[in-house]
Protein backbone atom coordinates (compact mmCIF):
# COMPACT_ATOMS: atom_id res chain seq x y z
CA UNK A 1 0.00 0.00 0.00
CA UNK A 2 1.47 3.30 -1.12
CA UNK A 3 -1.32 5.35 0.36
CA UNK A 4 0.82 7.33 2.74
CA UNK A 5 2.46 9.20 -0.11
CA UNK A 6 -0.74 10.65 -1.43
CA UNK A 7 -2.87 13.19 0.38
CA UNK A 8 -6.57 12.55 -0.07
CA UNK A 9 -7.69 15.48 2.06
CA UNK A 10 -8.81 18.73 0.54
CA UNK A 11 -10.98 21.77 1.08
CA UNK A 12 -14.17 21.71 -0.96
CA UNK A 13 -16.92 24.31 -0.98
CA UNK A 14 -16.07 25.59 2.48
CA UNK A 15 -15.55 22.20 4.14
CA UNK A 16 -12.34 20.50 5.16
CA UNK A 17 -12.61 16.95 3.92
CA UNK A 18 -10.19 14.36 5.19
CA UNK A 19 -11.33 12.19 2.30
CA UNK A 20 -13.18 13.08 -0.90
CA UNK A 21 -15.82 10.42 -0.17
CA UNK A 22 -19.10 11.85 1.08
CA UNK A 23 -22.15 9.83 2.07
CA UNK A 24 -25.03 11.04 -0.09
CA UNK A 25 -28.30 12.21 1.39
CA UNK A 26 -31.00 9.74 2.28
CA UNK A 27 -29.08 6.60 3.03
CA UNK A 28 -27.41 6.90 6.43
CA UNK A 29 -29.49 6.34 9.57
CA UNK A 30 -29.28 8.54 12.63
CA UNK A 31 -27.94 5.72 14.70
CA UNK A 32 -25.01 6.54 16.92
CA UNK A 33 -23.15 3.32 16.36
CA UNK A 34 -23.09 3.96 12.63
CA UNK A 35 -21.52 7.38 13.18
CA UNK A 36 -18.57 6.01 15.15
CA UNK A 37 -15.08 6.51 13.72
CA UNK A 38 -14.79 2.84 12.87
CA UNK A 39 -18.00 2.83 10.90
CA UNK A 40 -17.14 6.04 9.07
CA UNK A 41 -13.62 5.07 8.09
CA UNK A 42 -12.76 6.68 4.77
CA UNK A 43 -15.69 9.08 4.90
CA UNK A 44 -15.01 12.81 4.47
CA UNK A 45 -18.48 14.10 5.28
CA UNK A 46 -22.06 12.93 5.57
CA UNK A 47 -25.20 14.43 4.06
CA UNK A 48 -28.27 14.11 6.23
CA UNK A 49 -31.63 12.90 5.01
CA UNK A 50 -33.70 15.76 3.59
CA UNK A 51 -34.86 18.27 6.22
CA UNK A 52 -38.02 20.32 5.76
CA UNK A 53 -39.76 22.78 8.02
CA UNK A 54 -42.42 20.40 9.26
CA UNK A 55 -42.80 16.68 9.46
CA UNK A 56 -43.37 15.05 6.09
CA UNK A 57 -44.76 11.54 5.97
CA UNK A 58 -43.30 10.78 2.58
CA UNK A 59 -44.94 8.66 -0.07
CA UNK A 60 -47.28 5.77 0.50
CA UNK A 61 -47.00 2.32 -0.99
CA UNK A 62 -43.88 0.77 -2.44
CA UNK A 63 -40.85 2.98 -1.95
CA UNK A 64 -37.91 1.02 -3.30
CA UNK A 65 -37.58 -1.28 -6.28
CA UNK A 66 -34.55 -3.14 -7.47
CA UNK A 67 -33.36 -2.59 -11.03
CA UNK A 68 -30.36 -3.92 -12.95
CA UNK A 69 -27.32 -2.62 -11.08
CA UNK A 70 -29.41 -0.05 -9.34
CA UNK A 71 -32.68 0.83 -7.73
CA UNK A 72 -35.60 3.17 -7.93
CA UNK A 73 -36.81 5.06 -4.89
CA UNK A 74 -39.88 7.05 -4.13
CA UNK A 75 -39.36 8.00 -0.51
CA UNK A 76 -40.80 11.44 -0.95
CA UNK A 77 -38.67 13.39 1.50
CA UNK A 78 -40.00 11.76 4.66
CA UNK A 79 -38.48 13.48 7.67
CA UNK A 80 -39.51 14.69 11.09
CA UNK A 81 -39.07 18.38 10.33
CA UNK A 82 -36.25 20.71 11.26
CA UNK A 83 -37.00 20.80 14.99
CA UNK A 84 -36.95 17.05 15.30
CA UNK A 85 -33.71 17.08 13.32
CA UNK A 86 -32.13 19.54 15.72
CA UNK A 87 -33.32 17.53 18.69
CA UNK A 88 -32.57 14.03 17.47
CA UNK A 89 -30.60 13.90 14.26
CA UNK A 90 -28.09 16.65 14.86
CA UNK A 91 -26.61 15.25 18.08
CA UNK A 92 -25.97 11.96 16.31
CA UNK A 93 -24.52 13.68 13.25
CA UNK A 94 -22.26 15.76 15.48
CA UNK A 95 -21.05 12.71 17.36
CA UNK A 96 -18.89 11.60 14.45
CA UNK A 97 -16.72 14.70 14.53
CA UNK A 98 -16.95 14.83 10.74
CA UNK A 99 -18.48 17.70 8.83
CA UNK A 100 -22.05 17.05 7.83
CA UNK A 101 -24.34 18.74 5.36
CA UNK A 102 -27.97 19.35 6.11
CA UNK A 103 -29.90 18.37 2.99
CA UNK A 104 -32.42 21.19 2.83
CA UNK A 105 -35.72 20.70 1.01
CA UNK A 106 -36.47 23.70 -1.18
CA UNK A 107 -40.02 24.41 -0.02
CA UNK A 108 -41.96 27.62 -0.47
CA UNK A 109 -39.88 30.72 0.26
CA UNK A 110 -41.45 31.41 3.62
CA UNK A 111 -40.99 27.87 4.83
CA UNK A 112 -37.43 27.59 3.69
CA UNK A 113 -36.55 30.83 5.43
CA UNK A 114 -38.10 29.55 8.60
CA UNK A 115 -36.18 26.28 8.32
CA UNK A 116 -32.92 28.13 7.84
CA UNK A 117 -33.70 30.37 10.79
CA UNK A 118 -34.14 27.29 12.94
CA UNK A 119 -30.86 25.86 11.70
CA UNK A 120 -29.08 29.13 12.46
CA UNK A 121 -30.52 29.04 15.95
CA UNK A 122 -29.14 25.57 16.56
CA UNK A 123 -27.01 25.24 19.70
CA UNK A 124 -24.12 24.11 17.53
CA UNK A 125 -23.05 25.37 14.17
CA UNK A 126 -24.31 23.54 11.08
CA UNK A 127 -21.22 22.94 8.93
CA UNK A 128 -22.98 23.32 5.58
CA UNK A 129 -26.25 23.17 3.69
CA UNK A 130 -26.91 21.03 0.67
CA UNK A 131 -29.84 22.62 -1.09
CA UNK A 132 -32.05 20.00 -2.63
CA UNK A 133 -33.72 21.34 -5.75
CA UNK A 134 -33.67 17.96 -7.36
CA UNK A 135 -35.92 15.40 -5.69
CA UNK A 136 -38.03 13.68 -8.37
CA UNK A 137 -40.40 12.10 -5.87
CA UNK A 138 -42.57 15.00 -4.83
CA UNK A 139 -44.70 17.54 -6.61
CA UNK A 140 -43.61 21.14 -6.38
CA UNK A 141 -40.91 21.17 -3.72
CA UNK A 142 -38.45 18.99 -5.54
CA UNK A 143 -36.86 19.02 -8.93
CA UNK A 144 -39.41 21.50 -10.24
CA UNK A 145 -37.01 24.06 -8.78
CA UNK A 146 -34.00 22.55 -10.44
CA UNK A 147 -35.06 21.95 -14.03
CA UNK A 148 -34.79 25.52 -15.26
CA UNK A 149 -31.96 28.01 -14.77
CA UNK A 150 -34.46 30.65 -13.76
CA UNK A 151 -36.18 28.77 -10.95
CA UNK A 152 -32.88 27.32 -9.78
CA UNK A 153 -31.43 30.82 -9.58
CA UNK A 154 -34.41 31.94 -7.58
CA UNK A 155 -34.08 29.06 -5.13
CA UNK A 156 -30.39 29.64 -4.60
CA UNK A 157 -30.91 33.37 -4.19
CA UNK A 158 -33.56 32.85 -1.53
CA UNK A 159 -31.38 30.54 0.49
CA UNK A 160 -28.17 32.49 -0.06
CA UNK A 161 -29.79 35.56 1.43
CA UNK A 162 -30.51 33.73 4.68
CA UNK A 163 -27.53 31.43 4.93
CA UNK A 164 -23.98 32.75 5.01
CA UNK A 165 -22.25 29.44 5.66
CA UNK A 166 -21.14 26.95 3.02
CA UNK A 167 -23.95 26.34 0.55
CA UNK A 168 -23.90 23.41 -1.82
CA UNK A 169 -26.61 23.04 -4.42
CA UNK A 170 -27.70 19.62 -5.57
CA UNK A 171 -28.69 19.56 -9.21
CA UNK A 172 -31.15 17.36 -11.03
CA UNK A 173 -30.15 15.54 -14.21
CA UNK A 174 -33.68 16.12 -15.46
CA UNK A 175 -32.69 19.70 -16.26
CA UNK A 176 -32.79 19.94 -20.06
CA UNK A 177 -29.84 22.34 -19.95
CA UNK A 178 -27.81 21.26 -16.97
CA UNK A 179 -24.80 23.52 -17.60
CA UNK A 180 -27.11 26.52 -17.67
CA UNK A 181 -28.66 25.55 -14.34
CA UNK A 182 -25.18 25.06 -12.94
CA UNK A 183 -24.09 28.50 -14.08
CA UNK A 184 -27.24 30.03 -12.62
CA UNK A 185 -26.56 28.44 -9.23
CA UNK A 186 -22.97 29.61 -9.35
CA UNK A 187 -24.01 33.13 -10.23
CA UNK A 188 -26.34 33.27 -7.23
CA UNK A 189 -23.54 32.38 -4.87
CA UNK A 190 -23.46 28.60 -4.46
CA UNK A 191 -20.17 27.43 -2.99
CA UNK A 192 -20.26 24.04 -4.65
CA UNK A 193 -22.55 21.99 -6.87
CA UNK A 194 -23.52 18.39 -6.35
CA UNK A 195 -24.01 16.69 -9.68
CA UNK A 196 -26.46 15.05 -9.43
CA UNK A 197 -29.55 13.61 -7.81
CA UNK A 198 -31.48 10.60 -9.18
CA UNK A 199 -32.63 9.99 -12.76
CA UNK A 200 -36.30 9.78 -13.60
CA UNK A 201 -37.31 6.19 -14.18
CA UNK A 202 -40.19 3.88 -13.45
CA UNK A 203 -41.02 0.26 -12.72
CA UNK A 204 -43.99 -1.89 -13.61
CA UNK A 205 -45.26 -4.51 -11.22
CA UNK A 206 -46.12 -7.15 -13.75
CA UNK A 207 -47.83 -9.34 -11.18
CA UNK A 208 -50.20 -6.56 -10.20
CA UNK A 209 -50.27 -5.14 -13.72
CA UNK A 210 -49.77 -1.60 -12.53
CA UNK A 211 -46.85 0.73 -11.93
CA UNK A 212 -44.82 -0.30 -8.90
CA UNK A 213 -44.94 3.21 -7.46
CA UNK A 214 -48.04 5.21 -6.70
CA UNK A 215 -46.51 8.26 -8.35
CA UNK A 216 -45.59 6.05 -11.33
CA UNK A 217 -42.16 7.61 -11.76
CA UNK A 218 -39.30 7.32 -9.27
CA UNK A 219 -35.62 8.17 -8.98
CA UNK A 220 -33.01 5.82 -10.40
CA UNK A 221 -29.67 5.52 -8.61
CA UNK A 222 -26.81 3.10 -8.17
CA UNK A 223 -24.04 1.84 -10.46
CA UNK A 224 -26.39 1.73 -13.45
CA UNK A 225 -26.44 5.52 -13.68
CA UNK A 226 -22.72 6.05 -13.28
CA UNK A 227 -21.96 6.62 -16.99
CA UNK A 228 -24.78 9.18 -17.14
CA UNK A 229 -23.67 10.93 -13.97
CA UNK A 230 -20.08 11.06 -15.18
CA UNK A 231 -21.22 12.71 -18.38
CA UNK A 232 -23.21 15.23 -16.35
CA UNK A 233 -20.17 15.92 -14.16
CA UNK A 234 -18.03 16.44 -17.25
CA UNK A 235 -20.52 18.94 -18.65
CA UNK A 236 -21.03 20.84 -15.43
CA UNK A 237 -17.31 21.02 -14.67
CA UNK A 238 -16.88 22.60 -18.08
CA UNK A 239 -19.49 25.21 -17.23
CA UNK A 240 -18.56 26.55 -13.79
CA UNK A 241 -15.51 27.39 -11.72
CA UNK A 242 -16.85 26.51 -8.27
CA UNK A 243 -16.13 22.97 -7.05
CA UNK A 244 -18.32 20.19 -8.35
CA UNK A 245 -19.08 17.11 -6.31
CA UNK A 246 -19.82 14.05 -8.44
CA UNK A 247 -22.78 11.92 -7.44
CA UNK A 248 -24.52 9.01 -9.09
CA UNK A 249 -23.53 5.38 -9.05
CA UNK A 250 -20.14 5.74 -7.42
CA UNK A 251 -19.43 2.19 -6.28
CA UNK A 252 -15.67 1.86 -6.25
CA UNK A 253 -12.45 3.86 -6.22
CA UNK A 254 -12.27 3.64 -10.00
CA UNK A 255 -15.57 5.51 -10.25
CA UNK A 256 -14.36 8.14 -7.81
CA UNK A 257 -11.13 8.49 -9.78
CA UNK A 258 -13.07 8.83 -13.04
CA UNK A 259 -15.23 11.62 -11.64
CA UNK A 260 -12.23 13.41 -10.20
CA UNK A 261 -10.34 13.17 -13.50
CA UNK A 262 -13.46 14.59 -15.15
CA UNK A 263 -13.24 17.60 -12.85
CA UNK A 264 -15.05 16.70 -9.64
CA UNK A 265 -13.42 17.78 -6.40
CA UNK A 266 -15.07 15.05 -4.38
CA UNK A 267 -17.77 12.43 -4.76
CA UNK A 268 -20.94 11.42 -2.99
CA UNK A 269 -22.01 7.83 -2.84
CA UNK A 270 -25.42 6.65 -1.74
CA UNK A 271 -26.96 3.49 -3.11
CA UNK A 272 -23.70 1.61 -3.31
CA UNK A 273 -23.61 1.66 0.48
CA UNK A 274 -26.67 -0.56 0.40
CA UNK A 275 -24.42 -3.17 -1.15
CA UNK A 276 -21.36 -2.43 0.96
CA UNK A 277 -21.07 -0.45 4.18
CA UNK A 278 -17.28 -0.55 3.89
CA UNK A 279 -17.21 1.16 0.54
CA UNK A 280 -15.93 4.57 1.70
CA UNK A 281 -12.87 2.97 3.26
CA UNK A 282 -12.23 1.00 0.09
CA UNK A 283 -12.65 4.06 -2.12
CA UNK A 284 -10.36 6.14 0.06
CA UNK A 285 -7.59 3.57 0.10
CA UNK A 286 -8.01 2.76 -3.58
CA UNK A 287 -7.75 6.44 -4.47
CA UNK A 288 -4.71 6.85 -2.29
CA UNK A 289 -2.96 3.97 -4.04
CA UNK A 290 -4.02 5.21 -7.46
CA UNK A 291 -2.88 8.75 -6.78
CA UNK A 292 0.49 7.59 -5.56
CA UNK A 293 0.88 5.37 -8.61
CA UNK A 294 0.22 8.37 -10.86
CA UNK A 295 2.96 10.24 -9.07
CA UNK A 296 0.53 12.84 -7.80
CA UNK A 297 0.88 14.43 -4.39
CA UNK A 298 -2.74 15.08 -3.57
CA UNK A 299 -6.29 14.80 -4.80
CA UNK A 300 -6.08 18.34 -6.06
CA UNK A 301 -3.50 17.26 -8.62
CA UNK A 302 -5.97 14.81 -10.13
CA UNK A 303 -8.99 17.10 -10.31
CA UNK A 304 -9.80 17.64 -13.98
CA UNK A 305 -6.64 15.92 -15.19
CA UNK A 306 -8.67 13.87 -17.64
CA UNK A 307 -9.92 17.00 -19.37
CA UNK A 308 -6.53 17.80 -20.77
CA UNK A 309 -7.55 21.10 -22.29
CA UNK A 310 -10.97 19.82 -23.35
CA UNK A 311 -13.82 22.09 -22.37
Amino acid at each position, binding site marked *: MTSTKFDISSRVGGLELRSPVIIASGVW*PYERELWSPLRLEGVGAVCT*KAVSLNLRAGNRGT*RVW*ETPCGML*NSIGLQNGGVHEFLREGMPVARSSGLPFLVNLVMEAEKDVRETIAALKDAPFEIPALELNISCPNVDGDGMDWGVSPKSAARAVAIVRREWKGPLWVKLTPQAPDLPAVARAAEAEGADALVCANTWLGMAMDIKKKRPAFRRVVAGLSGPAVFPLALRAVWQVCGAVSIPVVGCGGVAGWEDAAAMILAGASAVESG*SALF*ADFNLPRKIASGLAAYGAEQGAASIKDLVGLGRDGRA
Partner: protein
Amino acid sequence: MAPKDFRAELVENRKLDDGTFLMSLRCPEIARAAEPGQFVLLRPGAGNDPFLGRPLAVAAVDGDVFTVLLRVTGRGTEMLASRREGDFITVRGPSGRGFWSSREGEPLPGKIILAGGSVGAAPLIFAAGRLGSAVTAAAFGFAGRGWEGTAKLAEELVSGAGLFSDDGAFGRKGTVLAGLPDELPHDTEIWACGPVGMLRALAAKYPGSGSRVRVSLEARMACGAGGCLGCVIPLVTGNARVCADGPVFKAGEVKWDDLDQI
Protein backbone atom coordinates in the same frame (compact mmCIF):
# COMPACT_ATOMS: atom_id res chain seq x y z
CA MET B 1 -25.17 -4.20 17.41
CA ALA B 2 -26.01 -2.23 14.25
CA PRO B 3 -25.79 -4.44 11.18
CA LYS B 4 -22.39 -4.98 9.62
CA ASP B 5 -21.19 -6.54 6.40
CA PHE B 6 -19.37 -9.84 6.42
CA ARG B 7 -18.11 -12.45 4.00
CA ALA B 8 -19.56 -15.71 5.23
CA GLU B 9 -18.77 -19.21 4.05
CA LEU B 10 -21.70 -21.34 3.05
CA VAL B 11 -21.10 -24.46 5.10
CA GLU B 12 -24.28 -26.30 4.23
CA ASN B 13 -26.93 -25.94 1.57
CA ARG B 14 -29.57 -28.55 2.15
CA LYS B 15 -32.50 -28.89 -0.19
CA LEU B 16 -35.63 -29.52 1.86
CA ASP B 17 -38.10 -29.37 -0.98
CA ASP B 18 -38.15 -28.20 -4.56
CA GLY B 19 -37.40 -24.52 -4.11
CA THR B 20 -36.80 -24.58 -0.37
CA PHE B 21 -33.32 -24.71 1.09
CA LEU B 22 -31.78 -24.72 4.52
CA MET B 23 -28.58 -22.74 4.23
CA SER B 24 -25.97 -22.43 6.95
CA LEU B 25 -23.31 -19.76 6.91
CA ARG B 26 -20.25 -19.36 9.07
CA CYS B 27 -20.22 -15.88 10.56
CA PRO B 28 -19.34 -15.76 14.26
CA GLU B 29 -20.42 -12.14 14.75
CA ILE B 30 -23.90 -12.69 13.42
CA ALA B 31 -24.33 -16.14 14.93
CA ARG B 32 -23.48 -14.74 18.36
CA ALA B 33 -25.55 -11.58 18.16
CA ALA B 34 -28.69 -12.69 16.33
CA GLU B 35 -31.91 -13.18 18.21
CA PRO B 36 -35.13 -14.78 16.97
CA GLY B 37 -37.02 -12.41 14.68
CA GLN B 38 -33.90 -10.68 13.47
CA PHE B 39 -32.81 -11.14 9.92
CA VAL B 40 -29.85 -10.83 7.59
CA LEU B 41 -29.51 -9.57 4.03
CA LEU B 42 -27.74 -11.95 1.67
CA ARG B 43 -26.28 -10.66 -1.59
CA PRO B 44 -27.20 -13.09 -4.36
CA GLY B 45 -24.12 -12.80 -6.54
CA ALA B 46 -20.63 -11.41 -6.80
CA GLY B 47 -21.42 -8.45 -9.06
CA ASN B 48 -23.90 -5.59 -8.67
CA ASP B 49 -26.73 -7.48 -10.34
CA PRO B 50 -28.90 -8.29 -8.48
CA PHE B 51 -28.15 -5.10 -6.60
CA LEU B 52 -29.89 -5.40 -3.25
CA GLY B 53 -29.47 -7.92 -0.47
CA ARG B 54 -32.28 -10.40 0.16
CA PRO B 55 -33.74 -10.19 3.67
CA LEU B 56 -33.99 -13.60 5.32
CA ALA B 57 -34.89 -14.40 8.89
CA VAL B 58 -32.38 -16.20 11.03
CA ALA B 59 -33.78 -19.69 11.62
CA ALA B 60 -31.12 -21.05 13.93
CA VAL B 61 -27.67 -20.42 15.31
CA ASP B 62 -25.09 -22.96 16.32
CA GLY B 63 -21.71 -21.76 17.49
CA ASP B 64 -20.20 -19.72 14.66
CA VAL B 65 -22.86 -20.71 12.20
CA PHE B 66 -26.29 -19.29 11.52
CA THR B 67 -28.98 -20.80 9.35
CA VAL B 68 -31.69 -19.43 7.09
CA LEU B 69 -34.64 -21.11 5.46
CA LEU B 70 -34.73 -19.92 1.88
CA ARG B 71 -37.65 -20.11 -0.50
CA VAL B 72 -36.96 -19.47 -4.18
CA THR B 73 -39.40 -16.82 -5.39
CA GLY B 74 -37.39 -14.87 -7.94
CA ARG B 75 -34.03 -14.32 -9.50
CA GLY B 76 -32.06 -13.40 -6.40
CA THR B 77 -33.28 -16.25 -4.26
CA GLU B 78 -32.69 -18.59 -7.18
CA MET B 79 -29.09 -17.47 -7.42
CA LEU B 80 -28.69 -17.92 -3.68
CA ALA B 81 -30.17 -21.39 -3.78
CA SER B 82 -27.66 -22.41 -6.40
CA ARG B 83 -24.64 -21.35 -4.34
CA ARG B 84 -22.48 -24.27 -3.34
CA GLU B 85 -20.95 -25.27 -0.06
CA GLY B 86 -17.58 -23.57 0.25
CA ASP B 87 -18.78 -20.47 -1.60
CA PHE B 88 -18.56 -17.14 0.16
CA ILE B 89 -21.62 -14.92 0.40
CA THR B 90 -21.79 -11.29 1.47
CA VAL B 91 -24.09 -10.92 4.46
CA ARG B 92 -25.38 -7.86 6.29
CA GLY B 93 -26.73 -8.32 9.76
CA PRO B 94 -28.07 -8.87 12.24
CA SER B 95 -30.87 -6.48 11.32
CA GLY B 96 -34.04 -5.41 13.02
CA ARG B 97 -35.69 -5.87 16.36
CA GLY B 98 -36.65 -9.44 17.10
CA PHE B 99 -39.30 -10.93 19.33
CA TRP B 100 -37.33 -9.97 22.44
CA SER B 101 -35.77 -6.61 21.62
CA SER B 102 -38.96 -5.24 20.09
CA ARG B 103 -40.61 -5.53 23.52
CA GLU B 104 -38.79 -2.50 24.91
CA GLY B 105 -38.84 -3.78 28.45
CA GLU B 106 -42.24 -5.42 28.39
CA PRO B 107 -41.99 -8.69 30.31
CA LEU B 108 -42.30 -12.00 28.48
CA PRO B 109 -45.75 -13.52 28.83
CA GLY B 110 -46.10 -16.85 30.54
CA LYS B 111 -47.45 -18.65 27.52
CA ILE B 112 -46.64 -18.25 23.86
CA ILE B 113 -48.30 -19.73 20.82
CA LEU B 114 -46.23 -19.84 17.65
CA ALA B 115 -47.94 -19.50 14.28
CA GLY B 116 -45.93 -19.80 11.11
CA GLY B 117 -46.93 -19.70 7.47
CA SER B 118 -44.67 -21.12 4.82
CA VAL B 119 -41.00 -20.10 5.31
CA GLY B 120 -42.32 -17.75 7.99
CA ALA B 121 -41.66 -20.76 10.19
CA ALA B 122 -37.98 -19.76 10.26
CA PRO B 123 -37.86 -17.19 13.09
CA LEU B 124 -40.37 -19.20 15.11
CA ILE B 125 -38.23 -22.31 14.98
CA PHE B 126 -35.40 -20.16 16.30
CA ALA B 127 -37.66 -18.69 18.99
CA ALA B 128 -38.96 -22.08 20.07
CA GLY B 129 -35.42 -23.16 20.88
CA ARG B 130 -35.02 -20.22 23.24
CA LEU B 131 -38.48 -20.32 24.76
CA GLY B 132 -38.56 -23.96 25.83
CA SER B 133 -41.70 -24.80 27.78
CA ALA B 134 -43.16 -21.30 27.46
CA VAL B 135 -44.40 -22.41 24.05
CA THR B 136 -47.78 -23.89 24.78
CA ALA B 137 -48.76 -24.51 21.18
CA ALA B 138 -47.30 -24.15 17.70
CA ALA B 139 -48.91 -24.37 14.30
CA PHE B 140 -47.22 -24.28 10.93
CA GLY B 141 -49.13 -23.98 7.71
CA PHE B 142 -47.95 -24.68 4.18
CA ALA B 143 -49.42 -24.85 0.72
CA GLY B 144 -49.16 -28.61 0.91
CA ARG B 145 -47.71 -30.86 -1.76
CA GLY B 146 -44.09 -30.00 -2.41
CA TRP B 147 -43.58 -28.67 1.11
CA GLU B 148 -43.21 -32.00 2.91
CA GLY B 149 -39.53 -31.63 3.72
CA THR B 150 -39.92 -28.17 5.16
CA ALA B 151 -42.96 -29.16 7.18
CA LYS B 152 -41.14 -32.16 8.55
CA LEU B 153 -38.23 -30.02 9.63
CA ALA B 154 -40.54 -27.60 11.45
CA GLU B 155 -42.27 -30.48 13.17
CA GLU B 156 -38.97 -31.98 14.26
CA LEU B 157 -37.56 -28.78 15.63
CA VAL B 158 -40.64 -27.56 17.43
CA SER B 159 -41.94 -30.41 19.49
CA GLY B 160 -45.68 -30.73 19.54
CA ALA B 161 -46.19 -28.43 16.58
CA GLY B 162 -49.30 -28.97 14.52
CA LEU B 163 -49.00 -29.01 10.76
CA PHE B 164 -51.55 -27.62 8.35
CA SER B 165 -51.71 -27.73 4.60
CA ASP B 166 -54.02 -25.89 2.24
CA ASP B 167 -54.46 -28.93 0.06
CA GLY B 168 -54.53 -31.49 2.84
CA ALA B 169 -51.39 -33.23 1.60
CA PHE B 170 -50.17 -33.54 5.18
CA GLY B 171 -51.20 -32.57 8.69
CA ARG B 172 -54.64 -31.02 8.95
CA LYS B 173 -56.25 -29.54 5.90
CA GLY B 174 -56.72 -25.82 6.26
CA THR B 175 -54.83 -22.76 7.30
CA VAL B 176 -52.80 -22.24 10.39
CA LEU B 177 -55.61 -20.18 11.88
CA ALA B 178 -57.56 -23.33 12.45
CA GLY B 179 -54.88 -24.39 14.92
CA LEU B 180 -55.31 -21.33 17.08
CA PRO B 181 -57.72 -20.80 19.97
CA ASP B 182 -60.87 -18.77 19.36
CA GLU B 183 -60.11 -16.50 22.29
CA LEU B 184 -56.63 -15.46 23.32
CA PRO B 185 -56.17 -15.94 27.08
CA HIS B 186 -54.76 -12.92 28.89
CA ASP B 187 -51.53 -14.61 29.89
CA THR B 188 -50.85 -15.72 26.34
CA GLU B 189 -49.27 -14.15 23.28
CA ILE B 190 -49.20 -15.28 19.71
CA TRP B 191 -45.95 -14.86 17.81
CA ALA B 192 -46.46 -15.12 14.12
CA CYS B 193 -44.62 -14.89 10.85
CA GLY B 194 -45.85 -15.66 7.36
CA PRO B 195 -47.50 -14.17 4.31
CA VAL B 196 -49.18 -10.83 4.92
CA GLY B 197 -52.59 -12.33 4.15
CA MET B 198 -52.20 -14.80 6.98
CA LEU B 199 -51.02 -12.11 9.39
CA ARG B 200 -53.87 -9.87 8.40
CA ALA B 201 -56.32 -12.67 9.07
CA LEU B 202 -54.65 -13.33 12.38
CA ALA B 203 -54.98 -9.70 13.42
CA ALA B 204 -58.63 -9.79 12.43
CA LYS B 205 -59.21 -12.93 14.45
CA TYR B 206 -58.16 -11.24 17.70
CA PRO B 207 -59.39 -7.67 17.30
CA GLY B 208 -59.24 -6.97 21.01
CA SER B 209 -55.86 -8.51 21.66
CA GLY B 210 -53.74 -6.55 19.24
CA SER B 211 -50.96 -6.04 21.72
CA ARG B 212 -50.63 -9.74 22.40
CA VAL B 213 -50.38 -10.77 18.79
CA ARG B 214 -46.85 -10.10 17.55
CA VAL B 215 -46.27 -10.35 13.86
CA SER B 216 -43.11 -10.28 11.82
CA LEU B 217 -43.72 -8.25 8.65
CA GLU B 218 -42.06 -7.97 5.28
CA ALA B 219 -41.25 -5.01 3.07
CA ARG B 220 -38.93 -4.35 0.18
CA MET B 221 -35.63 -3.11 1.55
CA ALA B 222 -32.54 -1.32 0.37
CA CYS B 223 -30.28 -0.60 3.36
CA GLY B 224 -31.66 -2.98 5.96
CA ALA B 225 -30.27 -0.64 8.57
CA GLY B 226 -32.85 2.09 9.08
CA GLY B 227 -31.29 4.66 6.77
CA CYS B 228 -33.15 4.75 3.50
CA LEU B 229 -36.76 4.75 4.70
CA GLY B 230 -37.54 2.37 1.89
CA CYS B 231 -39.22 -0.30 4.00
CA VAL B 232 -41.69 1.93 5.75
CA ILE B 233 -45.12 0.59 6.66
CA PRO B 234 -48.05 2.42 8.19
CA LEU B 235 -48.65 2.07 11.93
CA VAL B 236 -51.47 3.79 13.73
CA THR B 237 -48.80 6.07 15.19
CA GLY B 238 -47.26 6.88 11.81
CA ASN B 239 -44.52 5.42 9.65
CA ALA B 240 -42.32 2.60 10.87
CA ARG B 241 -39.31 1.01 9.25
CA VAL B 242 -39.64 -2.75 9.01
CA CYS B 243 -35.87 -3.16 9.05
CA ALA B 244 -35.13 -1.10 12.13
CA ASP B 245 -38.36 -0.53 14.07
CA GLY B 246 -39.48 -4.07 13.19
CA PRO B 247 -39.79 -6.56 11.62
CA VAL B 248 -41.71 -7.61 14.73
CA PHE B 249 -44.71 -5.41 15.47
CA LYS B 250 -47.82 -5.70 17.59
CA ALA B 251 -50.72 -6.60 15.34
CA GLY B 252 -52.74 -3.85 16.99
CA GLU B 253 -50.37 -1.08 15.98
CA VAL B 254 -50.36 -1.94 12.27
CA LYS B 255 -52.71 -0.05 9.97
CA TRP B 256 -53.68 -3.16 8.08
CA ASP B 257 -55.96 -1.39 5.65
CA ASP B 258 -53.14 0.78 4.36
CA LEU B 259 -50.62 -2.02 4.22
CA ASP B 260 -49.85 -3.01 0.65
CA GLN B 261 -49.22 -6.52 -0.50
CA ILE B 262 -45.52 -6.75 -1.48
